[in-house]
């Protein structure tokens, strides 16, 4: 959930690298931020709030030093405060530590350390680590050994980095939390994800679970749990660091909504051929599966998975969908015939990773559907398919959802062997149709009328049901307003009691489920609620709705993808009028790397 950056070397200014990295990481978590720079002593600065608060708190003179670490925090243990912000130090301020993940045995560690006379200044689980290291230093152990001994005592998930007073080496370790190392010419980097240092280098080493690394200006040495040196490969990442700019849009979210046609083109490129009448996904060439398929995912990715599971079932493959945090391979039948597909944008989502690992142990074949090359999911699963959406900075997922839906359409075709010429043609036309929605959407005007609503409801059937859920999630995330999505048929089984004149209902009316959904619209209208129909047949549906948001027809499977874009825009414009922190909604983080 939190973000880590570290740098040692002479090619750049340490403080500048850390601050740049922290700004780039802000979207991962942002209730506090801090940094530590090692020179003769150890300079530690940290503040509650966004990275700009830390910037204001720094001394006017740039902090000199050869090595430093920084952190943006999203609270898990203890509320956001200056004290709870990372880095944390031992009693003598000889070592500073930043950590991402959760130390499960921190209570007992803390009790032991307190009994030994260590004083804790924060409520965090992390603070146990510097005190453990401090104890070892006290006993005369050298820094590297002290760090290893401390990490050996940790249970749970962690990416951890430590700097020592007077040392230019940064020590790092990883277990079930993301950590990547960057290779420069006269300096080296580490971060929880690549964009934090992409401005400085695109050459990276992915650290594996259980590995340690010694990062010094002259080189990076990776070792295993026993301390044996491990040969590592240097990969080159091809993300453009400037992709992270807002390019003139007020928010990343709006930029990313407008990038969706391009994202779709990249997702479909060289995978869909009208000439050959085939859909191929190169990276899945060795995947063989005739089901059953189980999807595991969270949040927006779960909604994409619901869409994907339905597609597979329609193509004759048994498919189920599970919230990753509720997945339990012990109580769900899993065999070596089972394919478990983890849908995760970041490839680091802890809940999804947990489910995938469980599935792997139960003997299933695993497939990661992710946006991030080299992510934990991509490396740990038996197979990986990339959605190629490009970096997404806004916390509320938009273009990655659309790319997930498109990728799942391809996956369903690859698994089932169903290659309908109509679908292929519709897929090739999809980016342009999405552009059409963006060109002509009246969502801004429509949403202006409903900014003050008490609550928002979203209904749809079939492939539109997951889109309704996603529409409501987006609305919750960025407007902080009450919103719920329902399968349209469920409305009368309870939720209809909530419908009033103050609760606009967004109805997704496309494809062969339209007639039944119109029936549901009438139920809503009878209660006086305004109905906003998102539809590809405005002439027919318009008479039942107070407003129409039109989408082009793209067939039964793909029109719901277009309908979703209208809902993204509605949420965006409601949030914009409420002046919400759209790219960084309160209490939320982009990459949820805690269970």
């Amino acid at each position, binding site marked *: 959930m939190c973000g880590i950056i570290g740098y040692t070397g002479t090619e750049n200014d340490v403080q500048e690298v850390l601050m740049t990295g922290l700004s780039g990481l802000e979207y991962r978590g942002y209730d506090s931020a801090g940094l530590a720079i090692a020179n003769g002593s150890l300079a530690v600065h940290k503040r509650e709030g966004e990275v700009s608060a830390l910037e204001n708190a720094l001394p006017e003179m740039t902090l000199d030093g050869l090595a430093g670490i920084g952190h943006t925090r999203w609270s898990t243990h203890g509320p956001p405060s200056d004290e709870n912000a990372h880095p944390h130090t031992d009693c003598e301020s000889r070592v500073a530590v930043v950590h991402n993940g959760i130390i499960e045995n921190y209570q007992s560690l803390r009790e032991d350390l307190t009994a030994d006379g260590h004083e804790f200044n924060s409520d965090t689980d992390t603070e146990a680590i510097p005190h453990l290291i401090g104890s070892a230093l006290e006993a005369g152990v050298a820094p590297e050994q002290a760090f290893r001994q401390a990490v050996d005592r940790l249970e749970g998930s962690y990416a951890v980095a430590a700097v020592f007073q007077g040392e230019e080496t940064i020590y790092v370790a990883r277990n079930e939390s993301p950590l990547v190392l960057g290779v420069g010419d006269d300096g080296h980097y580490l971060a929880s994800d690549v964009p934090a240092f992409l401005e400085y280098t695109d050459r990276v080493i992915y650290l594996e679970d259980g590995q340690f690394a010694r990062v010094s200006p002259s080189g990076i040495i990776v070792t295993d749990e026993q301390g044996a040196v491990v040969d590592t490969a240097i990969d080159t990442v091809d993300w*453009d660091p*400037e*992709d*992270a*700019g*807002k*390019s*003139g*849009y007020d928010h990343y979210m709006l*930029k990313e909504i*407008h*990038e969706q*046609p*391009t994202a779709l*083109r990249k997702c*479909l*490129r*060289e995978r869909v*051929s*009208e*000439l*050959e009448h085939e859909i191929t996904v190169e990276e899945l060439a060795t995947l063989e599966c005739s089901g059953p398929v189980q999807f595991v995912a969270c949040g927006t990715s779960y909604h994409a998975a619901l869409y994907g599971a339905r597609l597979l079932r329609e193509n004759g493959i048994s498919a189920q969908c599970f919230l990753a945090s509720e997945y339990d391979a012990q109580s769900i039948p899993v065999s070596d015939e089972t394919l478990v597909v983890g849908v995760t944008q970041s490839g680091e989502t802890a809940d999804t990773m947990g489910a995938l690992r469980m599935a792997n142990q139960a003997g299933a074949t695993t497939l990661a559907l992710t946006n991030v090359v080299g992510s934990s999911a991509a490396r740990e699963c038996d197979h990986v398919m990339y959605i190629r959406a490009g970096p997404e900075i806004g916390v509320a997922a938009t273009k990655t959802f659309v790319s997930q839906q498109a990728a799942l359409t391809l996956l369903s075709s690859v698994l089932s062997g169903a290659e309908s010429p109509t679908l292929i043609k519709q897929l*090739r*036309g999809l*980016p*342009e*149709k999405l*552009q*059409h929605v*963006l*060109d002509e959407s009246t969502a801004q005007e429509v949403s202006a009328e409903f900014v003050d609503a008490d609550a928002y409801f979203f209904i749809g059937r079939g492939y539109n049901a997951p889109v309704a859920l996603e529409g409501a999630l987006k609305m919750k995330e960025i407007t902080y307003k009450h919103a719920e999505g329902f399968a349209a048929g469920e409305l009368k089984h309870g939720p209809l009691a909530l419908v009033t004149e103050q609760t606009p209902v967004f109805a997704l009316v496309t494809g062969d489920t339209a007639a039944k959904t119109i029936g549901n619209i009438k139920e809503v209208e009878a209660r006086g609620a305004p109905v906003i129909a998102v539809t590809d047949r405005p002439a027919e549906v318009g008479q039942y709705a107070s407003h129409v948001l039109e989408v082009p027809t793209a067939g039964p499977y793909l029109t719901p993808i277009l309908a979703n874009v209208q809902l993204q825009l509605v949420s965006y414009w409601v949030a914009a009028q409420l002046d919400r922190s759209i790219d960084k909604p309160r209490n939320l983080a982009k990459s949820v790397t805690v269970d």
Partner: protein
Amino acid sequence: MSLTSAVVLAGGEGSRLRPLTSNRPKPLLPAATRPILEHVFDQLIAAGITDITVVVGYKHNRVQAHFGSTYRNVPLTYVVQEQQLGSGHALLAAESEIDETVLVVNGDQFVESTIISDVLAAHNGDSVGTLGVLTKLQIGSYGGVLVGDGTVAEIVENPQDDRPYQLNAGVYAFEPEIFDAIYEADPQAGEYSLTDAISELLDDSEVQAAISEGTWVDATYPWDLLDISFELLGSGHTDEQCAVTVAESATVHDSAVIREPVVIAPDCEIGAGAVVGPYACLGENTTVGSNAAIERSVLDADTRVETGATVIDCVTGVGVTIGPGTTIPGGPGDVRVGDRVFEDEALGALLSDRVTDDGGSTYVPGTVVGSETTIEAGATVRGTISENTEVRS
């Protein structure tokens, strides 16, 4: 003088290119297969520019979404000109981004980098401005510049007399004094033009003229996109980054015939027996059905030419479908734009964004079809047809 930053004016619609501009401004219309503005950026980069401010206005989301925050590693800063009140007004929008000498270029015309370099070389700081001029026989509706002794004597928009005018290439180097001149010049019909501001400068200071021989092409009317594209095809300016004419991700059936010069953008698919070219520019993700024939045409992204269609002297917007067996036999034809009729233009047909032709239709030369109009199968299509209509057979 060496300058590394430039302001590109890309805020205007380019209304004479309607109906192609219904969803995007003229700078995003294709010259060959890439937007005019992309070519402008390429030429700026070739002239050593490393930092670009783009003034956007009409349908600016499309420009921002197309280019993002960098182009070929050159950072792009967007400035939104909410109302488009002339080229001077556009430059004012970027005033806060500028504190010293600045290069200003129109984003809706193709200029070769030599024109840019010639302006930069001529601008030596002694004068408050330098503008690039070209020797052309026809000044037409562009800016005419009277040059004497290397400096601008007079600048006239759309000159009617027969004095020896040179053409204003729309490439300028300005000292910050230009902003005062824009403020001081009287607006003409509510518009603040750079031409008026330059005239204002001429009252009490010197503006140099950099005479250049570089290539300069502009599309005034929609059918000019054909000429501008073919000129680029002939000169190798179609794609600065890769010299191939068929993109790697495009697929061409073994039995299809490609007649150079052509340029085929990524993700295109060309079916069996199709004939593409000579002089054909296929935008991204264009589909050409089996046995279709395309010649002397510029088809923008996501256009579908179905089986057996014939497409000659044709310009399409994005997402156009030309149905099976439809014939667009090519120009010349009379084209009506507003109240004017242009006779014998080499235009087979102009189909704007998302026009759907169901097939088996025939187009009378010079036909212009507005966005999202549907042509029923078997129709004969002629004249100027407005957007969102249905043409029955």
